[in-house]
């Protein structure tokens, strides 16, 4: 899948692509009031791929729906390219392309008919439909009914629909759900390609390995609140800092020794030690070597641990009790969680 380059208005403007402040959305259910989004703050920088991560039920899709004007927030504000949504959405919608959850089109219409209607609705010529179908590699199947498409083809048609408008901001909600490895690779490559051409891609997912490979920045949410935000590199640097994997002949004695020097030590399944900073800070790798050598313990492995997004995500969401949607009993006072930006 290739993407046609175009002059980037987005790059000429200042400020983040998306700013969300204190966004809150609740639904009434039989069990009371379900808090889908609980005072979310988030900034999506302009350009690049921004991962919007969280466990299922963390409020990602609801937030995206609010950005697109499909769902009305109870409170809070959201702006896209400086335009408040949903009030000013009509002024900026031509710059947003989005796939929310699964691609949703008329099942009985062909791929081309579905796109033609969308193009007609915003005054685009039919040639634009042909162009985007070509771009996503669906030109050969464009006259088949949507319901006959595989999941990957449906996803590609949805991407084609988002490209109709040549948007500056693309929002993909769980774009790799149900795709095979080739399809996942294709979607990942498309997102990267779009970002490299100056567009902003906001991708929500719970598949962190996928996101880590493609995202420049991420926001992690849990129970409808922001838990962490920043560049992937900064978050991982913070997460993995000071953790050493130590291979030694007598791990129990070595662990005791390092604990006596104020370090947190745990033993892995293969007998190696993971050494973390304790109350008095971390021992540098050279100091660990010296301490153990002086005790006659000789290292056969000393490796700084590289954290990945998945373990970081698990760490921060575990601290948030791995929250999914919260419930408030009917009549309960609505209390927003404060900002938990790390």
């Amino acid at each position, binding site marked *: 899948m290739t993407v046609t380059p175009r002059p980037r208005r987005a790059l000429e403007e200042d400020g983040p692509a998306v700013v969300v402040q204190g966004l809150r959305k609740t639904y009434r259910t039989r069990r009371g009031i379900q808090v889908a989004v609980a005072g979310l703050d988030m900034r999506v920088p302009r350009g690049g791929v921004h991962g919007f991560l969280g466990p299922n039920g963390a409020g990602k899709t609801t937030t995206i729906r609010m950005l697109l004007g*499909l769902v009305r927030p109870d409170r809070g504000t959201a702006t896209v390219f400086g335009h408040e949504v949903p009030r000013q959405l009509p002024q900026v919608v031509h710059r947003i392309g989005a796939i929310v959850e699964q691609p949703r089109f008329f099942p009985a219409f062909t791929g081309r008919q579905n796109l033609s209607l969308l193009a007609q609705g915003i005054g685009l010529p039919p040639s634009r439909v042909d162009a985007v179908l070509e771009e996503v590699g669906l030109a050969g199947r464009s006259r088949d009914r949507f319901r006959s498409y595989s999941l990957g083809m449906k996803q590609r048609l949805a991407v084609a629909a988002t490209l109709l408008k040549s948007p500056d901001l693309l929002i993909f909600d769980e774009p790799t759900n149900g795709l095979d490895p080739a399809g996942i690779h294709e979607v990942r490559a498309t997102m990267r390609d779009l970002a490299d051409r100056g567009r902003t891609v906001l991708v929500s997912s719970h598949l962190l390995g996928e996101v880590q490979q493609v995202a420049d920045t991420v926001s992690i949410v849990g129970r409808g609140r922001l838990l962490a935000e920043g560049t992937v590199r900064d978050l991982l640097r913070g997460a993995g800092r000071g953790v050493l994997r130590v291979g030694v002949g007598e791990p129990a004695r070595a662990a005791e020794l390092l604990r006596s020097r104020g370090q947190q030590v745990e033993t892995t399944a293969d007998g190696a030690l993971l050494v973390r900073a304790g109350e008095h800070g971390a021992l540098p790798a050279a100091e660990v070597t010296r301490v153990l050598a002086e005790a006659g313990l000789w290292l056969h492995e000393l490796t700084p641990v590289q954290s990945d997004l998945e373990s970081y995500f698990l760490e921060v969401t575990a601290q948030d009790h791995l929250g999914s949607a919260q419930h408030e009993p009917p009549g309960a006072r609505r209390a927003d969680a404060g900002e938990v930006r790390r």
Partner: protein
Amino acid sequence: MRLLRAELNRVRMRRITWLTALALLLALAGLSLIGWQLMQPPTSEQVAEGERYYQESLGYWEESREQIIAECVEFEGLSEEECAAQYELGRPTPDMYVPTPADFSQAAGIALTASSYLLGFGALLVAASSIGAETSTGALGSWLTFVPRRVPVYLAKLVAVVLWVLVAAAALQALLVTAHLLLARAVGAAVVGPQDVWATAARSLLVVLALTVVGFTVACLGRHTIAALGAVLGYGFLAVVRLALGGYGWVQQLTPWLPEANLEAVLRDGYDYYVTEQRTTAEGIEYVYHEAHLGLAHGLAYWAVLLAVLVGVSLLVFRRRDVT
């Protein structure tokens, strides 16, 4: 205009639009067949048979005259002259037994009236599914990410389906009338009163318009085609219950506020009904039947208000509703 064009195309592309039109075309062909039979002059066998029944009936009527008038005087307490006048009203006439062929105006009028509800139900189905399918498949969400102004989106959808349905219904009715005209000429029936036929066709289109808007708005509120069909079936059940209770005066007094009665008033240029009044007299309980009339203007005003409320409420809901 851009939105309206897209919505018109959407309705045109839908298979249900064409399947419904085809089904209606077949139904109208059936009505034309009935019209053809109504306009046929009676065969000589039918005339002879009718004449025989007429003579038999007339003979019986004349033979029974004295006995029935005597019973009338005895049991109903009327004078002999009054009973004789009443009996005279029942004199058999030849047209009761010898079939009289319908003229073009009568046959086309019957067909148009019968077609109104067929077309109306087809229109309701097309209109309900146009918005119902879009909501239930989630395609509406995709559409709103392209065109987020909900009021113009709603109006374009409603106007598109109304235009489509009215044009299709007018075309089908024109076919029906033309078919009756050709059949009338073929069987030698009298072609009189075409202006009445056009007036009936125009009123029939109003019925189609009303049911289109009902289908669209109810499906919009219920988010599914089935919601509109369910509402129609549910109302049909209530109508059956009302018919079962039709002997009660208070049920009859509801008639001016019933949608179907007002629809009939629009379709038939007025609707007559009876209200039963129960009186207690010295001789016992007496029932008096009052004839009442719903005019075309009442029917039009009633439906104008009802449709305005339905459109207003569904537009408000469509504008505010979360699309998930």
